[in-house]
């Protein structure tokens, strides 16, 4: 994401910050909050909070189940949100399934593929997974895009394979033709790493996967919130992202699937609202997306995610990306100047987001994080649900700062100063 600010007016960060009530609170004995953990979860603007509350105070009802006026209004609000969100990622509403988070979306695909083996319906052959079949992921995946595939392999006898990571934190595609073969059923990978910040090249992976008839699942958790993404243009088969990382409520995520795949894929969670006909002896199912939305859904949360999309659209995703680019640049430069600090991930801003992980010689990440916390700076420490990646980078844990549209350049400086403070406190500088 090498978007430049050349042809857009820069983001008015002060105006943005005023929309986020939590950013004006203090922590640890009166320190202003410096929130650099949006990669874990973002904060919510009043526009999103108000949209959800307005819905709950005026139109709340069970959607797709009632015929009274509230039920109509609730259903409209829910489906309008779906249409808006679909548009945001270059998809049509029928290609968007609401899940509780991205993790459920990936599990949905993995389980549905496992279910294809016993499905009496018209499951397409490409779904059924068994011994001899292979699932290909990468070593930089979040556990959410790793463990479900391990489990699918365990249940079905398929084999898990993976791309490695280069020294400078890029995907090592040198063995592309060895890894993606006629045996490959799915290629699943992160659009942007939640640790390295690396933005992975989608095109060569999609091309190769489709060449051998494999499906591609894109983990877009760290891309959709941060730069313009169009799933149709990218040509992926499935994609997932979470609302809570893009200013929206927790408890809602999205699975995108190409329409014909969602049509053919067997269901995952079953129950109310996803059926066509139910008899004690057996049931048939509704068309997608309903087929994959069992039970009373996350109604107000969908409305909130719709409002978050409105908010981001009003600012413009190009502008968000450009602002984050500046923040990443400042952080990479500032941290690189500190002796004993090592960036885990690409050192420059080429194809890279504003996620900056690092280690400090002689100061354990937990301890560095504690010093930063005492200064009011919220970062995340640990393996960030990417344990194998940390092992491959030769570190048990890292400190990770993640930036979003509401972060200021001065907050980057606070981080850099805080790291120096941690070195002083632990006597390594």
């Amino acid at each position, binding site marked *: 994401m090498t978007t430049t600010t050349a042809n857009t007016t820069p983001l008015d960060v002060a105006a943005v910050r005023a929309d986020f009530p939590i950013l004006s609170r203090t922590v*640890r004995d009166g320190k202003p909050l410096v929130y650099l953990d949006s990669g874990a979860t973002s904060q919510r603007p009043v526009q999103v909070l108000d949209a959800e509350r307005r819905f709950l105070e005026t139109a709340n009802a069970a959607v797709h189940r009632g015929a009274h006026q509230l039920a109509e209004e609730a259903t409209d609000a829910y489906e309008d949100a779906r249409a808006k969100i679909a548009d945001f990622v270059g998809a049509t509403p029928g290609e968007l399934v609401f899940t509780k988070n991205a993790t459920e979306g990936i599990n949905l695909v993995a389980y549905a593929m496992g279910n294809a083996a016993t499905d009496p319906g018209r499951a397409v052959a490409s779904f059924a997974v068994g011994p001899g079949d292979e699932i290909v992921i990468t070593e930089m995946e979040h556990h959410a895009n790793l463990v479900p595939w391990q489990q699918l392999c365990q249940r079905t006898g398929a084999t898990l394979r993976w791309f490695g990571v280069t020294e400078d934190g890029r995907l090592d595609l040198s063995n592309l033709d060895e890894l993606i073969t006629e045996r490959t059923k799915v290629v699943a990978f992160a659009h942007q790493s939640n640790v390295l910040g690396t933005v992975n090249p989608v095109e060569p992976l999609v091309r190769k996967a489709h060449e051998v008839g494999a499906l591609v699942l894109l983990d877009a958790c760290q891309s959709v919130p941060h730069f313009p993404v169009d799933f149709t243009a990218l040509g992926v088969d499935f994609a997932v992202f979470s609302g809570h990382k893009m200013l929206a409520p927790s408890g809602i995520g999205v699975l995108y699937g190409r329409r014909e795949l969602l049509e053919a894929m067997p269901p995952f969670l079953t129950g109310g609202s996803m059926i066509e006909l139910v008899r004690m002896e057996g049931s048939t199912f509704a068309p997608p997306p309903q087929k994959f939305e069992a039970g009373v859904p996350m109604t107000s949360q969908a409305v909130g995610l719709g409002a978050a999309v409105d908010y981001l659209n009003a600012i413009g995703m190009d502008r968000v990306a450009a602002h984050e680019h500046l923040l990443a640049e400042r952080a990479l430069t500032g941290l690189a100047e500190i002796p004993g600090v090592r960036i885990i991930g690409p050192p420059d801003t080429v194809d890279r987001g504003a996620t900056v992980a690092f280690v400090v010689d002689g100061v354990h990440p*937990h301890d560095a994080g504690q010093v930063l916390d*005492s200064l009011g700076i919220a970062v995340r420490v640990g393996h960030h649900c990417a344990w194998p990646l940390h092992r491959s980078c030769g570190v*048990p*844990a890292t400190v990770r700062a993640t930036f979003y549209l509401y972060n200021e350049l001065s907050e980057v400086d606070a981080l850099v100063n805080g790291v120096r403070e941690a070195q002083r406190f*632990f006597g390594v500088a």
Partner: protein
Amino acid sequence: MTVNLESMYQEIILDHYKNPHGRGLRDPFDAESFQVNPTCGDEVTLRVKVTDGKVSDVSYEGQGCSISQASTSVLTDLVTGHTVDEALTTMDAFVELMQGRGNIEPDEDVLEDGVAFAGVAKYPARVKCALLGWMAFKDALARTSNEVEA
């Protein structure tokens, strides 16, 4: 530097962190335990030798933050040379302190250097760090007695 940082990182803790006691894996031992903190990946391998009902040696190896390393160092001081029962009583007191959210007054007669961790108890996310070595000790000790019983 801030007040609350000093309440967590007592001098005693930093001393144990920089100069850990009893570190390194030793033979002979009766049981070994490997423990890991799943949120940060910190890990410890800890061995216990029991002789005539007494904890005659505790040795360990691991990687982790100052809190987890220092508390394991303090552990070896507190339990080595004591009977298994005494060691368990000390452990219970330490665990109680750590889970007390900073509301428990530690007994220095029982916990000695361990009282320095009182400040850590106010930081729930770090309590697991302070308990990592102790969980390994508890687990290893249980394995010892299983072997004795078996």
